[in-house]
Structures are given as structure tokens and as C-alpha cells.
């Protein structure tokens, strides 16, 4: 039996169904092995689809054979294939490396629950990416969010609890805003299928409810995506989560929200609303620019390494939004590529931090002084991924930064300002990455130094991700092919 047409469904079903099964695996080693195997399998599915999509295929799947708009449709194109690759890749890397860190942070009897929630979050995120239906996106969004609240709250630090409460309220508000918007569009069009919505909005006579819906959806998803200034939930949630959860969420959670934001906007609104492209850019571009500058500035003076990187994520989200706000092929390609490259860099950094955290309980920057002396490989991975974050040539981060600046040049009068801000923030990124490197390598140790390297299992994954940062910096053709096909696809839906 050829399973290829069923891949979009399997992508969600496999992690979702294995999630309760993991609960039954009482010995914690087995629970871990099961979860890691499922994540790897999901990654294989995503890779399979991404390769097919890069060859020009697209997946369209109707659940139970019911045709859209009555049935539930799943679809995988260049854009969703890229996002799926990010989600499953991050999950696979995080889970493969997870065991030592989870053993340290989560009590043995709760570990099956932890892995089960992890797979549920994975299922939710992949569900968002394959859905072609606005309401299913909401449901999957909530599945993944609920699972991530549980994951974040699972850490040993009590400060995780207020952080996750904040995340929960803001996340729910965001999702509800989205739901209101979808409801309004449904009222005017009578459909929930994205493609159908696009086709039917044109016939709507009173466009005002659609405009209000666009507002609700954009704000709601911006809240989920932590677009400045709606990012306040993010730094604490990331900083206090169990380290391995931070790896996973930082690499893909907000990116999936951005994915929905971009996809919904382009698929439903861009082609139907007059001047929408202009409104879209004039609303988002300033937010992106302020986000880039303010978050980078805050990161420069942040004392806790995980909060520092979380603030940097807010800035990087700004880059992604900035590229999308140009409404050009170049801009969207840059955005999509940065989704991928930033996941690679930030995922690698948080993985390396997980390695440091194995020996260092307190992750304030000054406590980590001199860590490179006993953990040279972990520290080297931080250097490589950090350079990728800054955008030094030869690393993945450079590719998307180059694309973004090239996209900005076509932006007329604003071009110089945009380029100046992107370059300035790169320098700020250099400053905060150097602070980390300086501390790890040159500062005299203040606490007892780590007895040795991170566990081999963790170190291996860290190494693979760090090398991937260089490989995709020199041979970026595969993610770029997906990115540019995503950009073309999205732009087909503009006026």
C-alpha cells in the first residue's frame, strides 16, 4: 500500500495517537525511547513531504473522503512543508537530546506524562501546519497551547508557574480573538475552508465585518506569535520552562503562529480587500522595526542567559514579520528562510544551554563564567550558533539576513532606513552574543566549574545542530527552494 497520499494525515495522527500510548510506558527509559521514535518518525514524514514538495508536488487530503467545503481538508504546500520540517526537526532534536536533562528536571514518575504532553504539543503544531480549515487551525492551536502550558509548568523552578499563567491568559485571549475573527468571516461567507473563504469574500457586499475580522485575526495571532509589543509573555515562559521544552518551543511555537498569520492574511484577505497590502505593511512594519530595536537593546543588558536569548527571539520575530510586510516575493522568501534559519540558530543555542544547565543550576550569565574551560564543545556550539544568530557569512543566519536586506532595497525611500535598522540590530546581536562568549571563555569562574562536558547523547545532538548551521549557510538550496515556492504561492493570492 502506498502511504504517500496519506502523509498529511499521518503527520498529525501519529504523534496524536501515540501520545496516550506513551502514558502506558511506565519505565521512563521506554517512555523516552517511544517519544523520540515518534518524533523521528514525524520528522521522516515531514522530510518526505518536503522533498516531494520541492519537486513540485503538493499534497491535498480530504479526511474520510468527504469533499471540501463539507469535509475537512488538509493541505501541504511549500510553505507548510517548510514549517513542518521546522516543527518536527525541532521536536526530534529536542527529544533525542532530552533524556539526561529531563531526568534531572522532572521526577521519574511524571516523565511519561511529560513525554505524552510533548507529543501532544507536536501533534497540535503539525496539525496547524497541515490544516486548510480556519477552525481546525484554532483547535490545533489550542491543543498545542494547552500542551505547552503543561510542559512549561513542569519545570522544577516555581517561577515557571506565574510565567505560565501569564502565557495561558494571553495565549487564550489571542486564540479567542482569532476565533472571533473566524466567526465573523464565517458569518459573511458561510465557509471555514481557507480557499473557499478567499473565493467567497469577493461576493460579500458589506465589507466592514471582514475588515473587523482581519483586525481581530491579526491581533490575536500577533499575540500568539509574540510580535512586539505583544511579547510580554514570552521571555519568562521561555526562561522558566524545562530546558528541553525551551529548545522545542523557541524553535517553532511562535513561528507556527507567524505561519498562520501570514497564511491567513495572504490566502484570505490580500486578494479581496482594497489597499490591504498597504495596510498590512503600515501596521506590521513599524511594529517589526520597533521590536527589532527594542528587544535587541533589552537583550544586550539582560543578565539571565535564557531570558537574553528569549528577548533575542522577539527581535528575530521582528525580522520575519518585516520581510512579510514588504508583500514581495523577495520579502516573503526572506521571511520563510528566516523561519528556518532562526529555528536552527536558536534551537542550537538553547540545546547548548541545556548542555550547560546540566552542570550549572543557576543560568545567570555571571554564574556561567569560565564554563568553556571544562565544556569546550558545548561552548564552541554556542559560538557557532551565536554567529549564525548574528548573521556572519558562512552560517545559516547570513543567508536570510542577506535576503532580507536585498528585499528591503526594493522598498523605495524607506530602503536605507530599513537596511540601517537591520544592520544596527545585527551589531546589537553581535554585542549580546559576544557577551555570552566573553563570559564563557574569559571571565574567571565564580562557582565550582563543571566537572566535564555535557552527556554524550546531548552533546551529539548539539554538535549536529551546530554543524547544520554551517551546512545550511553554505548549501542553502533546499530550504531556499521551499522558501521561494512558499513566497510565490502566497503572492499568487494578492491583488
Amino acid at each position, binding site marked *: 500500500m502506498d502511504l504517500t497520499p496519506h502523509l498529511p494525515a499521518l503527520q498529525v495522527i501519529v504523534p496524536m495517537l501515540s501520545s496516550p500510548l506513551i502514558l502506558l510506558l511506565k519505565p521512563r527509559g521506554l517512555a523516552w525511547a517511544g517519544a523520540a521514535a515518534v518524533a523521528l518518525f514525524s520528522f521522516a514524514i515531514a522530510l518526505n513531504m518536503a522533498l516531494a514538495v520541492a519537486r513540485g508536488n503538493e499534497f491535498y487530503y480530504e479526511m474520510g473522503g468527504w469533499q471540501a467545503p463539507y469535509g475537512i481538508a488538509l493541505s501541504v504546500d511549500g510553505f507548510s512543508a517548510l514549517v513542518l520540517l521546522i516543527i518536527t526537526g525541532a521536536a526530534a532534536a529536542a527529544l533525542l537530546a532530552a533524556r539526561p536533562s529531563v531526568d534531572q528536571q522532572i521526577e521519574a514518575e511524571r516523565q511519561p506524562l511529560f513525554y505524552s504532553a510533548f507529543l501532544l504539543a507536536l501533534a497540535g503544531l503539525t496539525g496547524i501546519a497541515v490544516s486548510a480549515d480556519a477552525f481546525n487551525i*484554532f483547535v490545533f492551536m489550542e491543543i498545542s497551547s494547552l500542551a505547552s502550558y503543561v510542559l512549561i509548568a513542569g519545570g522544577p523552578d516555581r517561577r515557571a508557574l506565574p510565567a505560565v499563567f501569564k502565557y495561558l491568559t494571553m495565549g487564550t*485571549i489571542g486564540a*479567542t480573538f482569532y476565533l*472571533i475573527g473566524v466567526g465573523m468571516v464565517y458569518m459573511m461567507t458561510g465557509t*471555514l475552508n481557507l480557499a473557499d473563504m478567499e473565493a467567497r469574500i469577493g461576493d460579500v457586499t458589506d465589507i466592514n465585518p471582514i475588515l473587523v475580522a482581519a483586525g481581530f485575526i491579526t491581533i490575536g495571532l500577533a499575540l500568539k506569535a509574540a510580535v512586539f509589543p505583544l511579547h510580554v509573555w514570552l521571555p519568562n515562559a521561555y526562561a522558566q520552562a524545562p530546558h528541553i521544552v525551551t529548545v522545542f518551543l523557541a524553535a517553532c511555537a511562535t513561528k507556527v503562529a507567524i505561519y498562520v498569520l501570514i497564511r491567513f492574511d495572504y490566502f484570505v484577505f490580500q486578494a479581496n480587500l482594497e489597499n490591504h497590502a498597504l495596510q498590512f505593511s503600515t501596521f506590521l512594519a513599524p511594529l517589526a522595526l520597533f521590536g527589532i530595536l527594542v528587544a535587541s537593546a533589552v537583550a544586550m543588558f539582560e543578565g539571565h542567559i535564557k531570558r537574553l536569548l528569549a528577548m533575542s527571539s522577539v527581535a528575530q520575530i521582528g525580522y520575519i514579520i518585516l520581510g512579510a510586510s514588504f508583500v514581495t516575493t523577495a520579502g516573503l522568501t526572506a521571511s520563510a528562510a528566516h523561519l528556518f534559519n532562526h529555528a536552527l540558530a536558536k534551537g542550537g543555542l538553547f540545546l547548548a544551554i541545556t548542555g550547560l544547565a546540566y552542570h550549572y543550576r543557576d543560568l545567570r550569565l555571571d554564574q556561567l563564567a569560565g564554563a568553556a574551560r571544562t565544556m569546550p564543545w558545548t561552548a564552541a556550539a554556542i559560538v557557532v550558533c551565536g554567529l549564525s544568530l548574528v548573521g556572519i557569512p558562512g552560517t545559516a543566519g547570513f543567508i536570510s539576513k542577506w535576503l532580507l536586506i536585498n528585499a528591503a532595497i526594493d522598498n523605495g525611500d524607506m530602503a536605507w532606513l530599513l537596511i540601517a535598522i537591520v544592520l544596527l540590530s545585527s551589531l546589537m546581536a553581535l554585542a549580546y552574543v559576544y557577551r555570552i562568549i566573553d563570559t564563557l571563555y574569559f571571565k574567571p569562574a565564580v562557582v565550582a566549574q563543571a566537572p566535564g562536558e555535557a552527556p554524550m547523547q546531548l552533546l551529539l545532538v548539539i554538535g549536529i545542530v551546530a554543524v547544520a548551521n554551517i551546512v545550511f549557510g553554505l548549501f542553502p538550496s533546499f530550504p531556499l527552494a521551499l522558501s521561494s515556492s512558499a513566497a510565490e504561492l502566497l503572492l499568487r493570492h494578492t491583488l
Partner: protein
Amino acid sequence: MNLFELLGIFNYWVFAIVLTVGLYTVIAKTNLVKKLIGLSIFQSAVFLMYITMDKVEGGTAPIIQKGVENQVFSNPLPQVLILTAIVVGVSTLALGLAIVVRIYETYDTIEENEILDAD
């Protein structure tokens, strides 16, 4: 828009007011349980909106009956949707309350400002 039309969309006014009340509560209250109550009110408003929009005047439940021609029935889809959304809302509330309980256990308070002071 005359008074009659305004009253005609009465349900939507309720939706808007309840939504605002809920949102206000979430933002303004420092007690975490009250915040969660606000969140629930906020979500309930949306349920109300979905239920309102599916109502067709004179419509019945969407069950096909023998011998009845041109049957008018309310749109069942939003009800199905909102059933799902209610489940999501309840789970969120349950999880939120669980977190509040954990917060109370570790911090001995559920006032937001006191929690911030404690760390």
C-alpha cells in the same frame, strides 16, 4: 440606523458587552482566580456570538423528517464548532485553575503583585 434595528441586533450588543467585561476583568484584576473568571466570561461571549449567528428565524433542529418539504432549520455547523470551543475553554479553565492551585501551594498567595514580590 434606527432604534428598531439597534434592538434587532440585541444579541450582538450583549456579545460585545460581555466580551469587554471579560477582557477588562482579565487585565484589571490581580487575583488569579478572578482573572480566570474573566477569561471564561470573555470566551463565553464568543460562544454567544457563534450561537447567535446560526439561528435562522423559524428554523428547527436540522433533522430530516419524512414528508416535510422545504424544511427550515438553524445552521448546525456553528453549534458543532462552539461545542468544540467550549471543550477547549473548559480545558483551559481547568488547566488554569490547576496552575493557580500550584501557585497557591508554592507561594501561599494568589495575588499577582504578591507573587511578583516573592521572587
